[in-house]
């Protein structure tokens, strides 16, 4: 490596990191939070066998998992204006990412719900709790604990997938990097640099995950 590369890296580091902190991370955090809400609801209506909603849930998971994320982004951002629905880039990205991630996470949570022994529900009902009370206080907390490692995995995957939002003009890290490359003609160094920043984010998440898992080990 020569000195020019080093100074280019140093110069661009802040320029790339800032949209990472102000765009990539908020986009991930908001989308993933919404995805979790969607996932819990979608998993629960299936687990509890709520008639029509269960079919709707299966349909949603089927469509979302069966189509590319990039296509979903394009349909929402470039397609929906045709029917009068015009979304700004950021809300469009949040919408697509949370719906997409919600479908995957709902399967994780559904599997975790099903892994809770039936005896937990029976014991809850035998002490007089209603079905929903047992779900909320006994079954769901246990399921979420089981689901925590795979959900962390999804979160880590998602933070990287947000780079796709560059395609719908969200000025997140990757888009900003592309712009700097267009100016400086240094794709190798800059794309490696942005890759390293993603790696940094994921490393922090991994550390947080193992710390939380250690704390949760008290029971189970």
């Amino acid at each position: 490596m020569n000195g020019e590369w080093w100074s280019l890296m140093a110069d661009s580091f802040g320029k790339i990191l800032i949209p990472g902190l102000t765009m990539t991370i908020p986009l991930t955090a908001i989308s993933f939070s919404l995805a979790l809400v969607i996932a819990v609801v979608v998993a629960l209506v299936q687990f509890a066998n709520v008639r029509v909603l269960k079919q709707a849930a299966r349909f949603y998971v089927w469509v979302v998992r069966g189509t590319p994320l990039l296509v979903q982004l394009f349909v929402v951002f470039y397609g929906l204006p045709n029917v009068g629905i015009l979304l700004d880039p950021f809300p469009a990205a949040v919408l697509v990412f949370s719906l997409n991630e919600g479908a995957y996470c709902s399967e994780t949570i559904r599997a975790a719900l099903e892994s809770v022994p039936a005896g937990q529900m029976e014991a809850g009902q035998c002490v007089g709790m209603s079905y929903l009370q047992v779900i909320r206080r006994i079954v769901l907390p246990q399921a979420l604990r089981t689901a925590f490692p795979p959900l962390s995995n999804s979160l880590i995957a998602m933070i990287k997938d947000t780079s796709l939002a560059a395609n719908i003009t969200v000025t997140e890290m990757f888009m900003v990097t592309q712009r700097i490359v267009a100016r400086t003609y240094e794709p190798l160094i800059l794309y490696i640099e942005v890759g390293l920043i993603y790696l940094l984010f994921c490393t922090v998440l991994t550390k947080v995950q193992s710390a939380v898992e250690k704390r949760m080990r008290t029971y189970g």
Partner: protein
Amino acid sequence: MLEVRGVRKSFGEVEVLRGVDLQVEQGDVVAILGPSGSGKTTLLRCMNFLETASGGELIFDGETFPMSHTSRKDIARLRRKTAFVFQNYNLFRNKTALQNVTEGLIVARKMPKAQALEIGRQALEKVGLSDRCDYYPNQLSGGQQQRVAIARAMATNPEIIYFDEPTSALDPELTGEVLAVMRQLAEEGMTMLVVTHEMNFAKQVSSQVVFMEHGVVAEQGASREFFLHPQQERTKAFLRTLSGEIR
């Protein structure tokens, strides 16, 4: 106090209960004996609506309930007067021993927390576990878990407690501590319906014995009579196979 009549239950083609009649008076300790697969667990589960019977009725405190189609509301009401102790404990894995006991009081019965904690501590003390209040189930031995489960059952002040082989998942040395708690409960006048393979418990603690075979009650009677003068050939044969265990 509690009676079931003509309880039937089929799993698919297989008829597991074929018309079971059973009566429990207040303060009775009824032991249900019988070979494996005779339907003892299924009967108990039907009586607490964990399984829906195909037919039969349940009479509780003079009120009659059709067992195949009791409303959810009635089931909830009945469950508030009963408690169930499972073979494999089924303690709430995400709750401490004390929370296991108080959960039904606070959540289902809307009892003030302070009062529930008080009752919970008393119940755990009674089963000899006051020093284990804050332990999670996976930090307790099998015998301790089962005693927490019994405390959880007692705490709701039920009119009857159903036990499904409460000691059969336990090592022999842990069986005694659980049976001692049950014996104490019986002495205090708790009404209990106990599926068990523990002949000593049946002989010494129970007041009534019900012998089930092939989904029907083959013989029942006062415990003493039952063991001294069994009437049916099948009962005699069953007792003979167990005679190794009976001292």
